[in-house]
């Protein structure tokens, strides 16, 4: 497409043009400005906690408000474990559904199935939480947990040891998997569709079956974009708040068992912020927010860069 906008006759005389330019530039600049203000404001609020406990804020495993001891390790651990669990469940599903939609499904089926998966992203987090409390947790408590423990004999492994009360890392991980599925599948679908036709035709012409074509020609080409989509999903999972707060059990402990309750950084903030009365507690929660901010910033930037590398020269 030719960009003829610049080529148009330039009327520098009109004062309206200059005003208009200034206004839309101001709007555009407000986005970086907003991010800078967010960073400074949270950084300043977190500073007392970060400076007084230093590195032990990240490594300390004791979060005791009454004793004034704030170690964020349990929340960081919970964030990592619940997000990892979500990725382990959601990634194969998202990849499968994307390959199905971009390579295999008949045309009439693509729209409706894609729509159903996309709609998952439209459901509010708090509704996931409600559904999780009253539908998912009872299912996990009864058929699923005994099945994993007794039928599959996983009860002796540390991952599935101990009693399962329902509110657990396990429940949080599963709800997160459902929630990030549409984000991963939207990106992977897009990058798979960005793979040039010639790539597919060459593989088929060399005698590859459809599966070999997908495995050897399509996926390698789209690889960094797919990884970008997965990391984007990770970014969502790390910061997801309401559904996790409602399902994870909110206890600042590190336990190897997925059936044990835990905390994530986001759920810690959501759960304790309204009760935080003294400055030290408040600042500690702000510091947790600052850590979450930095981590999601890095994760998202990385994901965008990976996706951009694939789609840049692709279909669009």
């Amino acid at each position: 497409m030719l960009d003829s906008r610049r080529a148009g006759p330039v009327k520098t005389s009109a004062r309206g043009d200059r005003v208009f330019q200034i206004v839309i530039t101001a709007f555009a600049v407000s986005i970086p400005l907003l991010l800078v203000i967010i960073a400074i404001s949270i950084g300043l609020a977190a500073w007392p906690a970060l400076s007084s406990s230093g590195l032990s804020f990240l490594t300390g495993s004791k979060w005791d408000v009454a004793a004034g001891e704030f170690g964020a390790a349990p929340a960081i651990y919970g964030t990592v474990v619940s997000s990892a669990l979500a990725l382990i469940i959601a990634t194969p599903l998202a990849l499968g559904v994307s390959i199905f939609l971009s390579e295999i499904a008949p045309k009439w089926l693509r729209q409706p199935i894609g729509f159903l998966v996309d709609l998952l992203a439209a459901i509010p987090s708090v509704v996931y939480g409600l559904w999780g409390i009253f539908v998912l947790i009872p299912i996990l408590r009864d058929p699923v947990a005994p099945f994993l423990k007794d039928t599959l004999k996983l009860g002796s492994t540390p991952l599935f040891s101990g009693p399962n009360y329902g509110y657990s890392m396990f429940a949080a991980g599963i709800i997160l998997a459902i929630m990030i599925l549409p984000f991963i599948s939207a990106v992977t679908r897009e990058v798979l569709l960005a793979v040039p036709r010639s790539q597919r035709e060459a593989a088929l012409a060399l005698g590859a079956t459809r599966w070999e074509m997908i495995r050897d020609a399509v996926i390698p080409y789209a690889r960094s974009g797919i990884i970008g989509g997965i990391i984007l999903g990770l970014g969502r999972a790390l910061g997801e708040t309401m559904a996790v707060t409602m399902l994870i059990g909110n206890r600042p402990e590190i336990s190897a068992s997925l059936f044990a309750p835990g905390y994530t950084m986001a759920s810690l903030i959501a759960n304790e912020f309204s009760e935080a009365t003294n400055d030290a507690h408040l600042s500690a929660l702000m510091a947790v927010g600052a850590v979450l901010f930095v981590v999601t910033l890095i994760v998202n930037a990385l994901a965008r860069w990976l996706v951009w590398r694939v789609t840049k020269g692709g279909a669009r």
Partner: protein
Amino acid sequence: MLGLTYVAAIIATLPLLFIIFHLLRQGATFLRPSFFTEMPKPMGEAGGGMANAIVGTLILIGTASILGLPIGIGAGLYLADRRGSPLATIVRFLSDVLNGLPSIVLGIFAWEFLVRPFGGFSALAGGMALGAMMIPLVTRTTEEMIRLVPASLREAALALGYTRWRTSVSIVLRTALPGIVTGALVAIARIAGETAPLLFTALGNQFWSTALREPIAALPLQIFAYAISPYETAHAQAWAGALVLIAIVLIISLIARYATRARYAGGGD
């Protein structure tokens, strides 16, 4: 192996069907006309409605739109206009970063920036936090829709002696308007169900309040409070509220999707 992708497609669609099924079954059992007209009863008592929360959510959406739409559309205009400039690249990238920012981080920021200095929770702070969430979404869709406007339209306007800003506003923006409205609806659908930022800004309110400087009730906040309470009657209200909330979100999404489809079907791009 290909068979596995069929399985994945089936499993991936199941959760949505499950959730919709439970929402309809539970919600329809508990949803009464009084839900829309009455105030909430004290926790533990049966009956009552969420009239204040429904109105509160609408007020929050309105406040957010007043902040988010002009900034988002303006920034989108800029990005489409100055596609290759370094500032545009930075703004585009940072708007993606802002889009990926967890809503709870925006929530504590809004508390620190809009609630603490002004001495209290308010609907205004809640609306502004939600508005900030809308900006990146609106920016990107606006940019994309404006790029779809044929260059010949712009050239024709300029050739007729329109100034550049008149061309941008009366020709380009107007042509792209249906697409921009779609983008705005998608953004509204996304923030309508947001809860985390409201915990620290709008706070929620058991009473009738439409004042922007006071704490205000919102559907997602009410659903949250009821869902984690120990009372059966509150759970029933939570389901009814969730059905109403999801209906609002889905209707907005469907309108947006329909509008886009109609556009692409008839459009010449």
